[in-house]
Structures are given as C-alpha cells and as structure tokens.
C-alpha cells in the first residue's frame, strides 16, 4: 500500500478532515494531519488496518514552527506510513499516543525534553535525557548554551573551536523548498 492508498482510506473514513499529501524535492511523501485529529487517525489505522507497530515518533524544529512525525508500520501488509503534525511555537501541544503504542511513552518524553513539545494526557511527562534541572530545550534552533552546569564549565579547548557554530544565527531554509542554485 502506498501513501496515496492510505490517504484515500483516511479521506473515506474522515471526510471532513483536511489531510494533505506532501513530498519534498527528493525522498518519501508524508501525510499532513491537523493536530487535533492525529489521535483518531492513529486509532483508526491501528484498529482497522493493522498498523500496530510504531516505528518512530520524533519532534522537529522547522524554524517556522514545531513538528511531530509518526511512522507506523503494518506487519502483515509489510508497509509503513509517515504522518506529520505541525504545531505553532506559542502552543506546541498535541494529544499523547501512549495508550495506543507502548513505546510512544519514551519517545514523547524525549520530544518534550529536547524540543519542548507538550503531549496532553501523558502520564509522566518529565525530562528523560538531560538532568532534571537543565534549562532550555537543546534541539531547538535558537538554543544557547549556559556557561556552566553545577560549577562544571562548558568551555571548549581552543583546538575544538567550532568552525561552524552549533547554534546558527540565521534560520535554515523552509522544508521542501528548492535550494538556491540547485
């Protein structure tokens, strides 16, 4: 089953939801789902069409907003589909999928820790990778390092001066946009 087939199935079951099939210049297509409809969509795909395996749940910082991507797989049909949700910076909140997929619990904690995306209904949304008293969400594009942590300095040796700043000042290009000169 391709992404087009799954889009047709979803549009048949949820006729009022504006799903959108998008693709970059190269690579695989994904289905863009409105943020409040992601949980019914996942539930429908899992219970009716056998997409029982959550392969990946990740957060992304597009400099225009945040995104969450879900990659789910059906073991009998041997196919996967990528669903994406876009969230604004001032209210990055989406429903939690921990009741449908067990490993979504840890993936969502990681997205909260590193990107600041809130998952409503999550039983235990605390930091997982970083210490509990860390400040900031490091995977965001505008993150700035603190000068020290609990007295341990964060300076780098001169030989490790960053050739490219790790935290660039200018935002990166739009997702899926044609690069200049390509």
């Amino acid at each position, binding site marked *: 089953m391709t992404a087009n087939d799954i889009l047709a199935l979803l549009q048949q079951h949820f006729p009022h939801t504006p799903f959108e099939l998008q693709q970059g210049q190269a690579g695989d297509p994904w289905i863009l789902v409105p943020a409040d409809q992601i949980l019914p969509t996942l539930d429908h795909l899992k219970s009716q069409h056998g997409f029982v395996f959550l392969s990946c749940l990740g957060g992304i910082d597009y400099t225009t907003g945040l995104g969450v991507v879900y990659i789910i797989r059906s073991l009998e049909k041997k196919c996967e589909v990528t669903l994406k949700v876009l969230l604004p910076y001032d209210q990055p909140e989406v429903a939690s999928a921990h009741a449908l997929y067990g490993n979504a619990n840890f993936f969502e904690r990681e997205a909260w820790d590193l990107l600041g995306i809130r998952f409503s209904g999550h039983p235990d949304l605390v930091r997982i*990778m*970083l*210490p509990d008293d860390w400040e900031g969400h*490091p995977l965001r594009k505008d*993150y700035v*390092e603190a000068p020290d*942590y*609990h007295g*341990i*300095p*964060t*300076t*780098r*040796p001169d030989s*490790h001066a*960053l050739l490219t700043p*790790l935290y660039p000042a200018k935002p990166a290009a739009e997702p899926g946009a044609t690069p200049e000169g390509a």
Partner: protein
Amino acid sequence: MEPLIWDAGFAIPTKIDDLINLPRKNSLWYLLFATACCGIELMQTGGPRTDLDRFGMVFRATPRQVDLLLIAGSITYKMAEEVRRLYDQMPEPKYVLAMGSCANCGGLFSRGYSVVKGIDKVIPVDVYLPGCPPRPEALNHAMMTIQKRIQKDHWAQRMFNEAEAITK
C-alpha cells in the same frame, strides 16, 4: 655520631620504598566502570590476547576496594556527579587514568551540549591516554606508565624526613 647515622641511613628508606611499591604496582585493582566504546576495548584488553591479569589487575565492582579509576568513555553532565562520588569513595592512595579522547577533552562530542569537556574538570587525572578508542597495546602502555608513577611514591622517605625533622 648522630649526623653520620642520618646521612648513611638515607639510602635505607629509598630501598624500603622500592620494596613497598613493588607489590603495590603489581596488584593494581581497577573499578569496573565503562561508559562507552572505550569500555569495550577495556574488556578486550582484559581478554585472552592482551591479558591484564598478568599485571595483577582485576576488576572490582565497588569503589571501596580499588586503587585505580579508569574513566573509559564519555562522561555527561548527568553522570559527572556520580563520577565525583565514585572518586570520593575510593580509599587513598588512588590513581586516575583518563582513557580515550572523550575522557581527555570531550573528544568528538565536545561540539555538543551534554558531554563534559574532559574529566579533569571534575576529578584530578594522573595519566591521559589518547585514542578513539585506544588499542589494547596503548592501554597496556598507559597501565605501565601508572606503574612507573607508583614506583616513585615515597612512603618510607617521607617518614624518614619527618623523623629527621623532629629529632633535629
């Protein structure tokens, strides 16, 4: 009479030191503490081809019974306090070997936000061993360097000097 005894007797504490340090350096117990990739090379060095047991080195799981803390692998800020606690729990005299680039200076992860840029920001280090990961032969050489460091410890000489200062 007294000055002659002190001058001639100076040779004895150095010989006693050599005698004390010989068994100390040949039964160096290290803590089983392996964080990342260097830990696998440490396990391989304890394996059949390059054998650490022939140096008298065995691994112990508790810091109370070891002389040597081998930092093998990257240390993150979350782990740094635990490393400090392990170091404080070791009894004196203790030695630290920073194994691999990540323990020396943060290695290739020093560009990130979460790795301590060198374990010497947290605990004092005796020997630095570069490599990513260092070969078992390199780890052998580092262990022998620590042994040379131990051979130079002054126990009897210090007691001799203190006794000399008191009586003079």
